[in-house]
């Protein structure tokens, strides 16, 4: 039976258990959308308002569900609009397959209408990409793309489909087996290395777990928790690791790095054994490398060999799937620990950290105006144990306050652009997350700057009756840049003051068909937030917060983690 390329694609997507597609039609992929309409029982398209939104939505869908996000876009500008989203997913290792249309094969290279070399453009920001030039290779290519996206260290894979491949005909053969000769990710940990790691842990006086996004993506959080609780090892995380370990556990000491907690940054500096799981030691995490974790022997578990010894020299590298590695580590620790009294051995260390926590908790000075941190604290208090909540953020001060003041309890409940730091990520990511988890309370926490970067997706959200709640911490500044201007540029607030320059977010919400609330006084905060959470549809809450609040602690760029500014 001969199928068109478009039909072959749909058949492949169904076999890959794809259920939703975030897309935007256009000239060369009109046939794909036409074909898609005949598979509406299995494939639901979400029509976004901008291709960047499609990719972030697919990304949010993937982060929330653990499945591979899928997006279908047209050639040329459709494809280039996707690049920021693809780079975002690449930085954070999010599994995604992006399908772009391309001009017919015979026109490639002729500067045809809406032609762009998207395979060339996305080469450095995809895990891999393909230009399909032979319809016989189409099914195999799609199979490989899904396999690459989800296996090993996950990432986005792009498939560029010329028009003649989409409309051409070929026998459809679904490749049952998938094998890429030159690609064999290593999942199994090396036992010798694990034993060395266990040795270090057993003999440590001040051990510390540092968990990253790999713990979330490999579902290793429960095993890390098991080891930490059993062996009384405190835990800190990177931004991407939030939710991998419960923020309410007494062993939890918060996020590390540039805006990490005082305790977490001191803990890294003073630990004698650091067990880093699923992190690539990014510069925002380590601060100045020459003074990072100087007293510690470091165990580094990561599935990507390039992460190891890229930034930080480690004593025990373990290249493996994080979950498999910590499962192995847990077993060896049980056998190796013997009669060790973890509680007693780590008592001094844990009480030192508790003391730091007491002396330098995350805090802010309440005032007449609403403090941004206060909004996050209120949201945390109001939703804890009452809602199955998932939060997406944009990028900037609001993102850091969310990371600091909201207690994430479960993995895949904090969706944020960590590596690339993409403003405009939050709203479309919330869209995708709500599609993935219709039963959850999905909240996008944003700033008055960030929200304007993909606000058009509010139309998609309303059109699909997705009850996403948006909370804007509105300080009428591009706050994070203003903070740097405040601290390092003599308060020269260039191009960061948005006073009087933003739309009325309440009326904007209404214009989009959502509900808008404004909160200007502390007394209104909780009642209005509650009203927003209870509203059936999409809501924007414009919270007017104090203007010049800074995020603390802060490790200035290029400084060591022990050189924190605390106020």
């Amino acid at each position, binding site marked *: 039976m001969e199928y068109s390329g478009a039909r072959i694609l749909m058949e492949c997507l169904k076999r890959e258990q794809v259920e939703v597609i975030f897309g935007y039609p256009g000239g060369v992929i009109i046939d794909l959308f036409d074909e898609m309409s005949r598979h509406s029982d299995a494939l639901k398209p979400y029509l976004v308002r901008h291709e960047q939104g499609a990719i972030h939505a697919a990304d949010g869908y993937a982060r929330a569900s653990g499945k591979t996000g899928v997006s279908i876009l047209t050639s040329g500008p459709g494809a280039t609009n996707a690049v920021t989203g693809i780079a975002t997913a690449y930085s954070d290792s999010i599994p995604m397959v992006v399908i772009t249309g391309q001009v017919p094969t015979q026109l490639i290279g002729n500067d045809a209408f809406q032609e762009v070399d998207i*395979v*060339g453009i996305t080469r450095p920001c995809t895990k*891999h990409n393909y230009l399909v030039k032979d319809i016989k290779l189409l099914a195999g290519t799609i199979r490989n793309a899904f396999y690459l996206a989800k296996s090993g260290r996950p990432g986005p894979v792009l498939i560029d489909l010329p028009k003649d491949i989409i409309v051409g005909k070929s026998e459809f053969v679904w490749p049952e087996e998938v094998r*890429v000769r*030159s690609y064999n990710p290593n999942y199994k940990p090396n036992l010798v290395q694990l034993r060395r790691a266990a040795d270090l842990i057993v003999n440590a006086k001040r051990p510390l777990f540092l968990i990253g996004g790999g713990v979330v993506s490999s579902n290793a959080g429960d095993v890390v928790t098991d080891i930490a609780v059993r062996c009384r090892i405190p835990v800190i995380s990177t931004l991407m690791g939030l939710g991998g370990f419960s923020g309410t556990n007494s062993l939890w000491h918060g996020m590390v790095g540039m805006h990490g907690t005082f305790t977490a940054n001191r803990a890294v500096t003073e630990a004698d054994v650091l067990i880093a799981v699923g992190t690539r030691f990014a510069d925002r995490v380590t601060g100045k490398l020459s003074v990072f974790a100087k007293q510690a022997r470091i165990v580094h578990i990561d599935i990507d*060999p*390039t992460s190891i010894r*890229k930034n930080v020299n480690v004593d025990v590298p373990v290249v493996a799937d994080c979950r498999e590695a910590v499962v192995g580590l847990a077993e060896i620790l049980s056998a190796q620990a013997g009669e060790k009294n973890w509680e007693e051995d780590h008592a001094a260390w844990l009480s030192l950290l508790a003391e730091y926590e007491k002396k330098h908790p995350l805090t802010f000075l309440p005032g007449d105006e609403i403090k941004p941190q206060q909004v996050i604290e209120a949201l945390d208090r109001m939703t804890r144990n009452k809602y199955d909540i998932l939060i997406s953020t944009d990028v900037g001060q609001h993102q850091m306050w969310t990371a600091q003041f909201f207690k994430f309890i479960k993995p895949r409940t904090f969706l944020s652009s960590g590596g690339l730091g993409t403003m405009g990520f939050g709203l479309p990511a919330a869209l995708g997350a709500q599609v993935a988890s219709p039963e959850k309370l999905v909240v996008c926490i944003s700033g008055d700057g960030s929200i304007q970067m993909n606000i058009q997706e509010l139309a998609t959200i309303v059109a699909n009756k997705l009850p996403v709640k948006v909370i804007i911490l509105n300080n009428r500044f591009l706050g994070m840049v203003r903070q740097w201007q405040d601290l390092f540029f003599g308060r020269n607030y260039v191009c960061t003051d948005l006073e009087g320059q933003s739309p009325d977010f309440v009326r904007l919400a209404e214009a989009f068909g959502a509900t808008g609330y404004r909160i200007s006084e502390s007394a209104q905060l909780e009642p209005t937030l509650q009203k927003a959470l209870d509203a059936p549809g999409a809501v924007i809450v414009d919270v007017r917060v104090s203007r010049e609040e800074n995020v603390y602690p802060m490790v200035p760029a290029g400084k060591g983690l022990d050189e924190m500014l605390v106020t």
Partner: protein
Amino acid sequence: MRYVLSVLVDNEPGVLSRVAGLFSGRGFNIETLNVAPTLENGVSMMTIVTSGDSQIIEQIIKQLRKLVTVIKVVDFHELAAVEREMMLIKVQADDSRRGEVLRIADIFRCKVVDVSLVDLTLEATGDHEKIGAIINLLNRFGIKELARTGTLAMKRSMQRE
């Protein structure tokens, strides 16, 4: 420190750009790069000469292995290996200088592949150092043109214990 890497790749369109883009994108150096097909259909061999400290080379090798189209990477550092490069070099050589140039060509076992009244074109093969030495010696006559293949390398069958 100079390193010679041999990289076996799937010969798909764009593979050169993937490898070259990796080097430029991450700020690694390429001194020479040579690509040609192997005996196996659809598989090519790249020989790359690069430089950096051991941590950078480790990253280069790991990053190369991470590329989906890269099948195998061999680092010739610490391996006994044969290294060769070929060069075509056009040297000014009128009647008064021709004899001298030919003597040097002879010492280095270069072949004369083209000759005119005013210049000689030589073909030379050898390792990196030998090619460098030839260029140094011929420099004073005036080098009009120069084309080099970049290094090729192969592991020796007998490795030191």
